[in-house]
């Protein structure tokens, strides 16, 4: 299941699950992540799942690469957590300024804005990982006809709530941030709430997300909440 185990610096283990980027590989990463997390080992300080990798940071005061590697290499992998994967429906507004890359997308994809949105809203997306900025979900896969490169020059500021697409993926900018994804709309839904101790983020790896369209008026109402 794991193709390769390396050290990343002197205080992290690097698990490589292979080159394939798909839901099957990623589900293995997530299952390993959840199984390891549930052990609550005091020497582990962070675990970062991504498409096909898992990085395990540890406290160098109390363990070392070889010791920890041996300890966790043969842990029991549970698939139990798959049951707790949620289905989440998010409002998205694609009117006016929210659809920032309308022109670029219609030209490059050779589709009308209506067709683009139809294809985008039709799909249910799998959350591969969360991160880069707090709470940002990396989800896929989008309709093959919508596959497009990142912007050549990234925007200095992508507005908070923006929903972007690139390659086979879609994401949500949980904060205003620099970024190069093609922006298709904006969601008023709060994704990251640091004050909520138990569930600071709405979308976790493994969850399934779909979008439904709302008008600007509805957006304003939801945003006031």
């Amino acid at each position, binding site marked *: 299941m794991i193709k390769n185990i*390396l*050290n*990343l*610096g*002197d*205080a*992290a283990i*690097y698990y490589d699950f292979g080159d394939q*980027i798909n839901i099957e590989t990623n589900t293995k990463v997530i299952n390993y*992540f959840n199984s390891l997390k549930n052990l609550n080992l005091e020497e582990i*300080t*962070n*675990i*970062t*799942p*991504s*498409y*096909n*990798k*898992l*990085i395990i*940071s540890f406290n*160098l*005061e109390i363990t*070392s*690469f070889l010791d920890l590697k041996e300890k966790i290499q043969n842990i029991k992998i549970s698939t139990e957590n798959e049951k707790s994967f949620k289905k989440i429906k998010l409002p998205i507004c694609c009117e006016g300024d929210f659809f920032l890359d309308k022109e670029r997308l219609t030209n490059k994809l050779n589709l009308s804005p209506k067709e683009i949105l139809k294809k985008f809203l039709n799909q249910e997306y799998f959350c591969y*990982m*969360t*991160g*880069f*900025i*707090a*709470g*940002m979900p*990396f989800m896929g896969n989008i309709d093959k006809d919508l596959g497009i490169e990142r912007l050549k020059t990234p925007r200095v500021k992508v507005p908070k709530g923006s929903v972007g697409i690139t390659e086979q993926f879609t994401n949500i900018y*949980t*904060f205003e941030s620099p970024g190069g994804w093609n922006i298709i709309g904006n969601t008023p839904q709060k994704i*990251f709430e*640091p*004050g909520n*101790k138990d569930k*600071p*983020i709405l979308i*976790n*790896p493994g969850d399934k997300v779909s979008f439904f369209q709302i008008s600007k008026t509805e957006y304003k109402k939801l945003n006031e909440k």
Partner: protein
Amino acid sequence: MKNNFFEVLRAGINSTFQDQGRENFYHIGLPFSGAMDNRNFLISNALVNNEDKQGVIEFAYQGPLFEFNGENTSFSITGDVKFKIIKKDNTIINGECYKSYILNHKDKLDIITTNKSIYGYLAVSGGFSLDKILNSYSTFSRANVGPFNGKKLFLKQKILINKINQPLQSKQVKYLNSKIEYIRILKGTNYDYFSKEGRDNFLKKEFIVTKLTDRMGMRIEGPKIENIKEKNIRSEGIVKGTIQIPPDGNPIIMLSDHGTIGGYPKIGVVISADYDKLVQLIPNTKIKFKLIDLYEAEKLYKFYSLETKNLLNQIK
């Protein structure tokens, strides 16, 4: 009894609350954060008799100016810092780092600047009275996480100080922030993405710390490091100290507030024992890297850790 508090009369350039950081949130996009220079953080707390988990104020370059209100408190400043205490009667005491001082009602503390380093630390006896956010006092301002909604220090802010019962005693320790010749590194997971010449450049030539350096990362410039495989990799987790090479060939070293996921190839990772010294390097400093192996890095960390403990024991 009155409340003890600091009123912020000048916030400084980049003043934040920090402790030893926030664990177990990488997977939702939150980095460790925490004091950049962990050893100086620990010493500042020890000098005012605090346990090592208390939050302190970290500042960079120009620091804050405070007015103290209350009965009295003691504080300490660590790093390489120029500061003064302005007593209520306007007498001025030039401060020394690594020494604790007592403040009385209406005294002012002016943290003028850090000298040949970036970060300094202010600890007060009993600690600041703060709310823990996601298990830590550390500020991660980009995601509004931390005390005072994750904001940096701001003008007219009132920062409450915990009351302490034990008598205030003066403490001092001798410590010099030693300079380093080399930043020691381990091979990164994409080390072989770079040409032989590129790798040689990286390990043998000098680099310069640029102005684009903050709590997130440090950009350095030097000879080009040519990538002969792929300029981008699939986004994956990174750790602090990771040295990434973006397509322009100029290395970026990930620091305590780094994005948790990155898509540039990793040529190396700075060893844990050299991290405190790395983060203190000011722009225009020349640095060189030295490749070592994991066994050596672990030994150096043990030595670093022992040295820190010895320093803390001297203060007790």
